């Protein structure tokens, strides 16, 4: 009887050890995921799918110190593109009322930049091509606010990710032309479409 109990104890102990070390802790259901899907049809069929948990990005970014990225922030000098001060532009948009900031309609392109219902919207359509390639960008203003929250000459990427996670499911970018389709969105699913 004693022997049987000892064998049982050893087996139970061993069986208990394995799952205790091997089982991952389940993530909360509210975990948000950033999804990127790139589908290319020419010159060859190619599909790229990336799914990143926002909580992971939020924790890993501060550990990367490279090319102007430090502690989860990027300096504005790096963000300055062809003489455009990105931080100043975002700051101006943040403080402006809802409305259209840029509207261009030409034979070559249609461009629209607007602030609407808590979103910064950018729409570009190329008219020259028959397929009329389109770019749609839709960023929640809370994310723009978070980007500018450091109050210095830096864009706070970690704060922006946190704001994105707190926001509901949303599509951020959609690009469509005759060769490819790109989609970037956030939702609570850990699988891509």
């Amino acid at each position, binding site marked *: 009887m004693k*022997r049987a109990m*000892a*064998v049982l104890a*050893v*087996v139970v*102990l*061993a*069986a208990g*050890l*394995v799952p*205790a*070390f*091997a*089982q*991952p*802790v*389940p*993530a909360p259901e509210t*975990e948000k*995921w950033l999804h990127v899907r790139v589908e290319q049809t020419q010159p*060859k*069929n*190619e*599909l*790229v*799918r*990336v*799914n*990143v*948990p926002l*909580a*992971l990005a939020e*924790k*890993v970014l501060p*550990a*990367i*110190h*490279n090319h102007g990225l430090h502690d989860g922030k990027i300096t504005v000098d790096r963000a300055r593109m062809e003489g455009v001060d990105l931080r100043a532009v975002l700051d101006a948009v943040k403080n402006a009322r809802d409305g259209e900031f840029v509207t261009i309609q030409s034979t070559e392109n249609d461009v629209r930049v607007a602030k609407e219902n808590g979103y910064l919207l950018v729409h570009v359509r190329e008219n020259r091509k028959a397929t009329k390639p389109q770019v749609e960008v839709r960023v929640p203003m809370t994310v723009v606010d978070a980007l500018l929250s450091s109050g210095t000459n830096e864009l706070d990427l970690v704060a922006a990710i946190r704001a994105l996670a707190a926001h509901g499911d949303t599509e951020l970018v959609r690009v469509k032309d005759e060769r490819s389709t790109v989609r970037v969105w956030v939702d609570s699913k*850990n*699988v*891509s479409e």
Partner: protein
Amino acid sequence: MIAAKLALGALGTLTLAGAYVFHEGVIRVAVDEHKGGRNESHVHFFVPAAAVPLALHVVPEDRIRQAAERLRPLLPAIVIASRELGRLPDADLVEVRDAREHVQIRVRGGKLLIDVESPQETVHLSVPLCTVNEVARELESRVPAS
């Protein structure tokens, strides 16, 4: 009676040792090169994940320091990423597929799986994330002070 007790003791020790060695799971590496003909190579092995951090103590210190120095900028990110990924449910992180190749990076049951299928080779790698974390932390501790 004494023999029975000794056998029971040995069995218990072996069971516990086995449970310890495999408690982190196994690292699986499978590489098959498809060259067509005699040059094809097949490398398949399983290693108890718990043995890897122990093996680091056997590797010459200068080699470890070299590796740690080379990986220094990435080590903090690897430590955090492996810890956080281990907490997540199963997920497909990256998938690249075209007519010839298929690459997948996934998390399944606390393991990082990397699978590559191409006309040249098939690679399957499976590593417990806790082992990645442990090795990265060990290397981080060996980075020479600058």
